[in-house]
């Protein structure tokens, strides 16, 4: 019973898995991988230009460029125009031809090829999307400088398309997706020097990439340089992103510092900042503190949302204050928030921690009665709790339900379940659970087998000492 890691895992995993099911939940609690909602939602209209190249991709097979030689490409293109007179020869098609060629050829050749296309096919007038194809290719090229990116940008201006914020965004995103964050920083600085200041989306995107993948000092110096050099200031979203990531790295001191700066700059923390903070406390095993954050929120007059309550209940459950957590179910009902699977699972987790697995099982009934359907995470939490509380028979019943619903097992609950089965001398059933875990792709073969093997090893030892069946 005293094993700490599995129970801890049992608490964490449910949370993450649950999040995916409810997009509205995302912003404060998701791990660093997912962008906070505000960026994604506002981003969409803006991202359109970026997407154009990828939309073209499906058309690619129709224009095979086997060789990267310019002359062959030119002749192939000539052939295409002469033979395919009937088919619509529009911008999108030309873009895809260019994309297909540039993915195999050098940038210089691609530019020549584009010139050739314009010359031989006068009705084709390239627009910014065409240049973005080139831009993306230039960013993808594995080089150690951004000269090729500048080359495309210069070419664009020479053709009468002044690079704008969209081009910056396209370039920064492509560079970051290739892991060239340093180049992205350099590009943004260069462009800012030419009066092309990135908008808040590009800026926040880059900051998020940096906090995720680089040292904190890199981020701070980037922010400092942008502020001092080009008067680009981080906004509330930037701070939220940073606090979130800093909390993920368990660096509470930096989080507190950021919070100080935030209020110095005159921003009033909103619901999301508070949610992020609460989540941070949960991550740092200071779950008890969530209540303080909640009180502060109330004092400041910030209206808590569902995520706030979920984080609060999660934190309280995790720190063993299930009674208080349960009270908030009532508060939620008063304020018109409906508890969802996350809420209930957190509570069940807390109850299981206290050893009240039967109570948690009863909560499952209550939850279903209220029309809230449990997910695989709920079941995993319960399975884990039941096995820990030595209620193996109930656990097996639950497992059968999970099997019927094709639910995946999580590492923690799988391990606990296998151990419980072996402890009761039901090795054959443990083997079947192993089979299910592998079949349902819940775990990798290796992970599932290692657990089984070490459990059996432990069983053998226990038997030798006359402990287990």
């Amino acid at each position, binding site marked *: 019973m005293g094993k700490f*890691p599995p129970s801890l*895992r049992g608490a964490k995993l449910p949370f993450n898995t649950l999040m995916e099911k409810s997009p509205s939940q995302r912003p404060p609690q998701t791990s660093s991988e997912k962008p906070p909602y505000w960026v994604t939602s506002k981003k969409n209209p803006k991202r359109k230009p970026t997407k154009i190249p990828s939309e073209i991709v499906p058309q690619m097979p129709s224009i095979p460029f086997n060789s990267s030689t310019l002359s062959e490409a030119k002749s192939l293109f000539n052939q295409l125009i002469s033979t395919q007179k009937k088919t619509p020869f529009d911008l999108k098609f030309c873009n895809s031809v260019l994309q297909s060629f540039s993915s195999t050829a050098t940038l210089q050749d691609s530019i020549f090829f584009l010139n050739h296309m314009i010359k031989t096919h006068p009705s084709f007038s390239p627009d910014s999307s065409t240049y973005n194809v080139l831009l993306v290719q230039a960013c993808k090229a594995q080089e150690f400088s951004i000269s090729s990116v500048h080359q495309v940008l210069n070419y664009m201006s020479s053709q009468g398309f002044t690079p704008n914020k969209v081009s910056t965004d396209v370039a920064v995103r492509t560079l970051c997706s290739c892991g060239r964050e340093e180049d992205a920083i350099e590009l943004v600085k260069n462009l800012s020097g030419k009066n092309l200041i990135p908008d808040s989306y590009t800026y926040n995107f880059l900051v998020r990439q940096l906090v995720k993948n680089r040292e904190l000092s890199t981020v701070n110096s980037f922010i400092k340089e942008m502020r001092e050099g080009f008067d680009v200031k981080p906004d509330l979203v930037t701070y939220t992103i940073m606090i979130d990531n800093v909390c993920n790295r368990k660096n509470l001191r930096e989080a507190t510092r950021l919070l100080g700066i935030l209020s110095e700059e005159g921003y009033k923390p909103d619901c999301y900042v508070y949610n992020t903070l609460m989540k941070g406390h949960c991550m740092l095993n200071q779950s008890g503190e969530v209540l303080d954050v909640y009180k502060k929120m109330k004092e400041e007059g910030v209206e808590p949302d569902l995520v706030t309550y979920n984080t609060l209940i999660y934190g309280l459950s995790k720190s063993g204050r299930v009674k208080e957590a349960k009270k908030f179910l009532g508060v939620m009902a008063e304020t018109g928030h409906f508890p969802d699977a996350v809420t209930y699972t957190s509570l069940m987790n807390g109850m299981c921690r206290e050893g009240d697995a039967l109570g948690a099982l009863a909560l499952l009934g209550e939850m279903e009665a209220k029309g809230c359907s449990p997910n695989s995470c709920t079941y995993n939490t319960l399975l884990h709790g039941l096995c820990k509380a030595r209620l193996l028979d109930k656990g097996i019943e639950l497992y059968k339900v999970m099997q019927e619903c094709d639910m995946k097992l999580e*590492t*923690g609950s799988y*391990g606990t379940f296998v151990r419980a089965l*072996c402890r009761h*001398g*039901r*090795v*054959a*059933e443990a*083997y079947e659970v192993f*089979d299910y875990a592998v079949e349902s792709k819940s*775990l*990798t*073969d*290796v*992970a599932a*087998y*290692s657990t*089984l*093997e070490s459990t*059996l*090893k432990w*069983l*053998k030892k226990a038997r030798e000492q006359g402990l287990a069946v």
Partner: protein
Amino acid sequence: MLPQRMKQVITDNPKKLSDLIDLVNLPSTLREFMGLSQTSRLGCFKRVWSYIKENNLQDPNNKNLVNCDEKLKRILLGKSQVELAELPMLIKLHFPKQQK
């Protein structure tokens, strides 16, 4: 997805995982059973376990026991009955630690 603790173990000790998944040249007895000349310890375990299931070799009264047929006996130390719990250990015997 590997569990966190296992990730730690693997980064600390890559040998442990490689023992499990590296392909190994099989001894002649095992080669006959598997029909392969190379396999990993994990692959071998899965093959033996599915062989037991396919041929219904589990004891009907006690599923934890396996009544070995001739083929299985040859690779499991000649025992006529083995416990399922012993299976990983018995298979491990065919995969001695490699000295480098």
